[in-house]
């Protein structure tokens, strides 16, 4: 943050009126002033600590307690031994990877298309990305449930058009889950990719064409590499959000697609097993944080997260 010079100028009017025009006193004044300003963060910080950090820390502690209340690793041991947990983790990764890949495949071309439009047209087309972004996730999941059901719109249109003869099972399985999740995650990919594409200097492409590159070469050798940071950031956000997904697979998966977050909720609501739920939650959290940490080291993600607001 570029406030160092700001602070310096802040102090000069005070220095003239200050009773202690000594360097030490000024330094201490500046320090106190900065601490007072920093204090403005404390209400938000306190809230996040009390509502999130401490309870999650408590869950971390619970995950190491056996049912009798003694220290044990049984909840983690169960995760390694039990086949059902292995299946849940496999499903979670499968769904997250597939969703991310599909989002990249259809989101990148859309972002490219939007980035090339004149700004007025681009703003109108961007609304098609922002509208779902602003609409309730539950409403969109419900809409897909209605569209994809046995006698739903997609099936009846496909049969009318002769695409298939009898209703295909589109929902309450992996298909439905993927369709719904891609729909929900797509804006998270398109917006950062669009942002990074808009920042690419078009002169590079002209230069490439000038040097004899065909349009395809200019795209793959110049434009595509420059858009990669945005693409990685978007794909990462999509993947990490998918890992913790709950509502969409619960509604569109029909009990056939069980992801980690759903199992956590079941452990609480059905089995009242806080230890097991906490242990799963800790693993999910560590996975998420680990992936984010490694990629932020690789990609300087904080720059994108800090400056990449979509508004």
């Amino acid at each position, binding site marked *: 943050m570029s406030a160092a010079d700001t602070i310096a100028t802040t102090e000069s009017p005070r220095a003239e009126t200050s009773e202690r025009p000594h360097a030490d006193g000024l330094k201490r004044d500046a320090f106190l002033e900065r601490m007072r300003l920093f204090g403005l963060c404390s209400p938000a910080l306190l809230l996040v600590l009390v509502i999130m950090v401490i309870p999650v820390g408590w869950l971390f502690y619970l995950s190491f307690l056996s049912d009798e209340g003694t220290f044990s690793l049984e909840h983690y041991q169960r995760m390694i031994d039990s086949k059902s947990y292995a299946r849940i983790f496999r499903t979670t990764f499968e769904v997250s990877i597939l969703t991310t890949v599909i989002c990249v495949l259809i989101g990148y071309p859309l972002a490219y*298309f939007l980035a090339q439009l004149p700004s007025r047209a681009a703003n109108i087309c961007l609304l098609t990305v922002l509208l779902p972004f602003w609409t309730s996730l539950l409403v969109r999941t419900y*809409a897909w449930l209605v569209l994809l059901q046995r006698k739903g719109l997609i099936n009846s249109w496909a049969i009318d058009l002769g695409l298939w003869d009898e209703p295909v099972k589109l929902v309450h399985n992996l298909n439905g889950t993927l369709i719904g999740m891609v729909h929900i995650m797509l804006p998270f990919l398109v917006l950062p990719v669009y942002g990074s594409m808009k920042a690419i200097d078009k002169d590079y492409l002209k230069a490439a064409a000038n040097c004899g590159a065909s349009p395809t070469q200019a795209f793959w050798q110049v434009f595509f590499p420059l858009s990669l940071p945005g693409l990685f950031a978007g794909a990462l956000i999509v993947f990490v959000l998918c890992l913790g997904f709950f509502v969409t697979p619960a509604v569109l998966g029909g009990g056939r697609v069980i992801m980690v977050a759903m199992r956590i909720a079941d452990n609480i609501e059905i089995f009242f097993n806080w230890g097991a739920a906490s242990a799963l939650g800790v693993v999910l959290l560590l996975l998420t944080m680990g992936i984010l940490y490694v990629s932020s080291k690789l990609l300087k993600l904080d720059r994108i997260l800090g400056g990449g607001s979509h508004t």
Partner: protein
Amino acid sequence: MNWLKGAASDTQITHGNRLWLYVLSGLVMIFLVAPTVIVIPMSFSESQYLEFPPREWSVRWYEHYFQSEQWISATLTSLTAACLTALVATPLGTMAAYGLFVSNVRFAHLVFIILISPMMVPVILVGIGVFYAYVKLKMVHTIFGLVLAHSILAIPLVLIVVSSALRSYDMNQEMVARSLGATRLRAFMVITLPQIKFAVITSTLLSFLTSFDEVIIAMFVSGGDNSTLTRNMFNALRDQIDPTIASISTIMVLISSVLLICTQVFGKSKKEH
């Protein structure tokens, strides 16, 4: 069809060569918008099985909604929680953004990460953590507890939006005001705030929507007389496809669209100045 041969970009590609891109983008945009839009006419269907286009139009599912005490009380709970969340998260987030921006302490970056962490921690974990804490504090099923939990989800959004506005704002203006005798608070209120007000308004709307649309935390900590709309919808969805939900969905889509249009209008007027 001459435009097909015209240049499409700064390289020598023509529109004709890129027809596939236009078709694909069009289809993806339809994919993005159609489901939300198609629910609207369907909610006016007479039939128990939602049809499109409806064979017979009716407002029976809206009547069903407005006459149901349970749905209406859930809607009021959601609206109250969303307004309060916006009222809590916007000032706290804005204060934090301003504090971090001007204080320039060494650990500001760490604090920023902690404050936006609720965006990255899986919501399910926040949900059960909050639930556990609220059981101990006897705050389960209270609007107060729900608002606090939703606020920590909204603060990261406020922080990001307001911080990026502050970065493009010239802080020297505030210095001028202060050198002319204004206190820091007054300088902020009179000089800085009016210039970042679009970011603050956007943050308020985002905070409202974050709370209004939130499902998972509400599922754990709201309930009884204080069940939220999304909690009831989610429970209804797990059992069967209730057409009443189509009418509620339509209302929710309208609310989101109006808020989205508000931000676009604010954004436009900002550019014109």
